[in-house]
């Protein structure tokens, strides 16, 4: 029994080390996001997101262009990962997570009316899975 417990402890340690060392494999997540872009959209960029803090990126969106950002993680509907969009004056434009209803939107479709640098803040909430990918596409 003690041996079992000892093995259990070692296994626990092993799992902890494994978790800490586990690589966030972006490629399959990006591929999933790209598939979700669908017909009529052209892939532009991949945004890897790993670590509990999330990640901020920026992109120069162009006036008159229709963009879409798809989020993907290991869950079916991108639960636990979301994106906040800010304009160049740091004004929040949108969030793919509705805190009031606890709803995660797996994609944001964005109709750009002015060219400028926008901030894309990828965040995690209510999850321990800190590995996700954002995929940016434009509508043709």
């Amino acid at each position, binding site marked *: 029994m003690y041996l079992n417990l000892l093995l259990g402890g070692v296994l626990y340690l092993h799992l902890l080390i494994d978790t800490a060392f586990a690589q966030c494999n972006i490629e399959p997540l990006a591929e999933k996001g790209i598939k979700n872009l669908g017909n009529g959209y052209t892939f532009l960029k991949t945004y890897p997101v790993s670590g509990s803090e999330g990640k901020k990126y920026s992109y*120069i969106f*162009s006036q008159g262009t229709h963009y879409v950002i798809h989020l993907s993680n290991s869950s079916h509907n991108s639960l636990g990962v979301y994106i906040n969009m800010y304009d160049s004056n740091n004004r929040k434009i949108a969030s793919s997570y509705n805190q009031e209803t606890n709803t995660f939107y797996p994609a944001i479709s964005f109709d750009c009316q002015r060219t400028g640098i926008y901030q894309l803040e990828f965040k995690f909430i209510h999850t321990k899975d800190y590995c996700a990918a954002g995929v940016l596409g434009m509508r043709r």
Partner: protein
Amino acid sequence: MKMYRASTNLAMRFPSLLLQIGMLSVFIFLGLMGCNGPAKEKTGEELLAESKNQANQDKNQTPAISKEVLSDIVKSIPSPLEISFLIKDLGIRYDKTILNSADNMSNYNTSFKQALNLGIYSTDLGYANIYEQTQDALYYLTAVKNMAEGLKIGRFFDFNTIKELATKSNNLDSLLLVTNTNLERINEHLQESGRADLTILILTGGWLEALYLTCEVAKKQPNELLRNRIGEQKIILEQLLLLLSFYEENESVKDLINELNELQRIYDNVKITYEYEESTAEEENGVLIVKDNTTSKINFTEKDLDNILSVSQKIRKKIIG
């Protein structure tokens, strides 16, 4: 008996052993978090500003740009495909004569020229692909491959797959996807292997070619959308010049910066004003549809436009010559 005693000892020592394992786990975990856990995230602009300050403090040191900053700024630069799509969407006919001839590829023997022209040929390849000009696309694909091999990054370019997709019809999405992911991999590899300067040159070449194509098209068929798009390039030029400034110790880069500075001086006359209005959002089939209602106005004179055309043409001519 001995075994029993050993077990007893083990039994007596077990809680302490578990405690030690637990503590060890916690230490290892905290240690790893300490090593890998990121500090508070900063935006690309903040990081860029920090790096820029550092670079200004000591110009003689190697470029003070972190991989993180570079990666963020590189990702912020729009794909030249966006402009090519705009040109096609406006119903403007494909014009091969404005592209850089792939026959010139043998003239590019330095990594500086190869990187810039890899960017230029990539834009031309995207343009030909969008118009589904298979023969030209293959022609530019060869040029891109040649430049990539010269820079020892040819293995990241899946030539055979792209060639196969380019020769089949109705494969535009897949073709652009493979081409874009390949170029993304090339950029990532260059950044990882400490050759970020080449990434910036590839981006600059790609951007300059897209600007040049837009200018040439706008000259022949004046259009408000194209004109605005040319004016908006002011924002991207600023970003590129910031990135290039980290490598200005290199004489070739310095010359390029000087030429782009001339273009920037013209762009100083381009005024972009914004009228803020709150964004709106609604859900449609599980997707959040967002509309940024803030609008922008871009003002510049015809003379400014002519100057942008001639200076961008001059810079490009030097690069492709």
